């Protein structure tokens, strides 16, 4: 097991409401301590869903609260194809589905991107220039440049190098054209009339694939509904384009349940029972189940393992495949049109203000609004106090591998926490950590300086300009240490201070992981001596952070007269949250 590098996770307050202390019996609420006194347990199963690194968190400026990816509301800004980066309007999405309908395909074998290439060799460069200008002519195929798959393997070639999606839709594997509903009707009509021009073979099951069958069934039952009950048919017809966001469909659903309009029509129809016939013929969408699998079995016998499609390959396929039997073989696979991706904006769940909004242009990766938590709450970094002095590593060389970070049980070790203030106001930070970490192996924790001020964030160049003063300060600290050996952290004092950061020292005494050394429970009962669970040896300290600062009050629009008075008025703000410091793994033994 590798030792951990120290980390800091922050708990999003959204999980507070559903928080229930684990381990303790929840039956009696009166014996429960007050909400504020409860220690957050990073080992509770729920904690997995509420702890985030600072970089994942957003911040709502209006609620003054941290927002995590789980609690924000997302809205889709644009849909686009990840391959051609073309934006797809949401109206197209409803009619054409969630895949790229241009010429972007993924390889059915290895999901690599496919390219359209001409089967004909490009003209020789040694030939005359006039001949060179000739464009390569078809037929065209889709090829994968990674695994060398080509659509010739499934017998598909294209006449044109563009509009591959539409061309592919008209072809089944093996190059046979697929019938559309219109063509099918045409052919079956000719057949009935005994048209001598009609194709020799009558239409069979194999001419009708799943997609065509669905459209035929839909058309048939639609016509049946129209005959029996025009009103209901209209209802069902509009159900087809039912959108959740459309208020019309909502009212229709409501009326269905309340039975206002629907009940009337029901009564009316009770008089003459509607007789609805089921689909009977092929052109009505009826297909006899083909129970004869002997051809499939024969093919399976004749083929090797490599000829069968893997589960991954089958799952990657488009769900509505024109195929009669279950997808088994590699030559049943079809090029996969790229799934569309989305760009989303995020809203605060409470005040509905937008807290993250990407640029709607696909090629532009910037954000119009992005309120990341890192620019509002202090960054907390942890490092061991007695870390080896980081040398000036020359670029091009790797930094040295850090020494083992195992924590020795029963031996006090110190960690430096550095708080960096991102806001342009001085802040006051108050820390609280339980004296012993929750869990079976309780390590003791002492925060040497639980209360301190951090000066405001200023222009980053101030550091450089003030460098000499800083150096003086640093020297002072070092010199102070030199008097009595190496500098020692003192309780109640901060360890180091910079322009907008403060370092303090936390002392921990890791518990032993020996199961026989476990203390008995509070009621004297036998402690849990089950073997060590996964990651139970990680020393995690829950810490409550409270940040206070003064900010200018937000002046409301239109109150220009009062702003002058308010100019002096400062608003006191505070933000409090739980965070978890992961220090490392405790050594066994």
């Amino acid at each position, binding site marked *: 097991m590798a030792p951990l590098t120290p980390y800091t996770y922050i708990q999003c307050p959204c999980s507070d409401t559903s928080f229930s202390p684990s381990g303790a019996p929840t039956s009696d609420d009166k014996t429960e301590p007050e909400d504020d006194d409860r220690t957050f347990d990073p080992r509770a199963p729920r904690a997995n869903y509420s702890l985030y690194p600072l970089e994942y968190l957003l911040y709502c400026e209006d609620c003054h609260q941290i927002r995590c990816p789980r609690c924000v509301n997302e809205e889709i800004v644009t849909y686009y194809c990840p391959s051609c980066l073309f934006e797809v309007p949401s109206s197209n999405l409803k009619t054409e589905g969630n895949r790229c309908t241009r010429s972007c395909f993924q390889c059915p074998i*290895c999901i690599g991107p496919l390219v359209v290439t001409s089967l004909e*060799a490009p003209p020789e460069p040694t030939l005359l220039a006039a001949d060179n200008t000739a464009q390569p002519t078809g037929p065209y195929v889709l090829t994968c440049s*990674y*695994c*060398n798959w080509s659509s*010739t393997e499934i017998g598909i070639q294209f006449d044109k190098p563009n509009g591959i999606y539409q061309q592919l839709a008209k072809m089944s594997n093996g190059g046979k054209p697929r019938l559309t509903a219109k063509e099918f009707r045409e052919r079956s009509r000719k057949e009935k009339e005994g048209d001598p021009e009609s194709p020799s073979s009558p239409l069979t099951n194999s001419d009708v694939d799943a997609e065509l069958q669905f459209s035929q069934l839909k058309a048939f039952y639609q016509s049946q509904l129209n005959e029996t009950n025009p009103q209901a048919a209209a209802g069902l017809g509009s159900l087809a384009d039912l959108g959740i966001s459309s208020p019309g469909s909502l009212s229709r659903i409501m009326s269905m349940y309340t039975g206002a309009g629907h009940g009337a029509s029901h009564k009316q129809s009770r008089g003459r029972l509607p007789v609805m016939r089921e689909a009977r013929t092929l052109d009505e969408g009826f297909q006899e189940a083909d129970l004869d699998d002997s051809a499939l079995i024969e093919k399976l016998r004749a083929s090797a393992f490599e000829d069968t499609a893997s589960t991954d390959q089958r799952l990657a396929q488009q769900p509505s495949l024109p195929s009669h039997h279950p997808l088994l073989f590699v030559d049943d696979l079809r090029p996969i049109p790229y799934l569309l991706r989305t760009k989303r904006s995020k809203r605060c769940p409470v005040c509905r203000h937008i807290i993250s909004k990407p640029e709607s242009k696909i090629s532009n990766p910037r954000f119009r609004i992005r309120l990341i938590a890192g620019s509002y709450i202090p960054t907390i970094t942890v490092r061991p106090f007695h870390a080896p002095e980081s040398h000036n590593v*020359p*670029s*091009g060389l790797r930094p040295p591998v850090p020494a083992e970070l195992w924590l020795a049980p029963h031996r006090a070790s110190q960690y430096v926490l550095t708080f960096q203030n991102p806001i342009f106001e001085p802040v006051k930070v108050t820390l609280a950590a339980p004296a012993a970490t929750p869990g079976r192996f309780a390590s003791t924790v002492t925060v040497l300086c639980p209360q301190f001020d951090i000066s405001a964030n200023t222009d980053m160049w101030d550091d450089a300009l003030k460098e000499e003063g800083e150096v003086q300060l640093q020297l002072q600290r070092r010199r102070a240490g030199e008097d009595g050996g190496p500098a020692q952290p003192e309780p109640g004092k901060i360890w180091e201070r910079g322009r907008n950061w403060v370092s303090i020292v936390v002392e921990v005494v890791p518990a032993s992981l020996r199961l026989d050394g476990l203390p008995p429970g509070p009621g004297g009962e036998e402690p849990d001596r089950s073997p060590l669970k996964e990651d139970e040896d990680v020393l995690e300290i829950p810490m409550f952070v409270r940040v206070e600062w003064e900010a200018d009050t937000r002046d409301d629009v239109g109150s220009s007269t009062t702003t002058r008075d308010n100019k002096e008025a400062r608003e006191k703000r505070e933000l409090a949250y739980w965070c978890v410091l992961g220090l490392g793994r405790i050594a066994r033994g």
Partner: protein
Amino acid sequence: MSSSSSSKRRSILPPVSNSGPQAPVNASSSAKVSDNSILTGTHSITIQSESVVHPRARLESTSGSVLVGRRCIIHERTHIGSTDGDETSGGVVLGDYVTVEAGAVIKAGGTEIGGDTVVGVKARIGNGAKVGKNCTITPLSVVKPGETIPDFTVIYSNGRRRTDKRGVTELQHRVQARHVEVLKRLIPNNPAKRQAAAG
């Protein structure tokens, strides 16, 4: 301030480690072997007509002779005939129209690469492996020692295999010929210099 000068980034080409004896090279006059390629070993290294060896490619004939077929392209930082200190005997044979891409390693020990095969970037061919014709070893793939790969095999995606059914061998030959044509103009070489160095 003294530390700032030492941490200044230097970008110089690392020296070519030209250790080991110069191999007896038997290169065709139409082959293009870069001066900066490393040809070491005791057995013969034969490079047939119109093949191209990029700078910093390493051909080693310590345990056996190396034969490079016609119109092969051997990219930079490849290591053909690598022994890694093993006591292997036997050399390496590359067929015609073979491409060995950058950083690929082909171990010595009777290893054979069939014609028209492409060995991808940083791929590894174990010693004594027999790779058939028209194979594609995709980047970072590994062929185990002593393995026999049938013709037209594609090794991709952590060792999965399939058969190449494109049938574009003729087309690839033409592309390779043009590629060689261009490279011969781009790669400087001075056969006299190498001769002098060998002598």
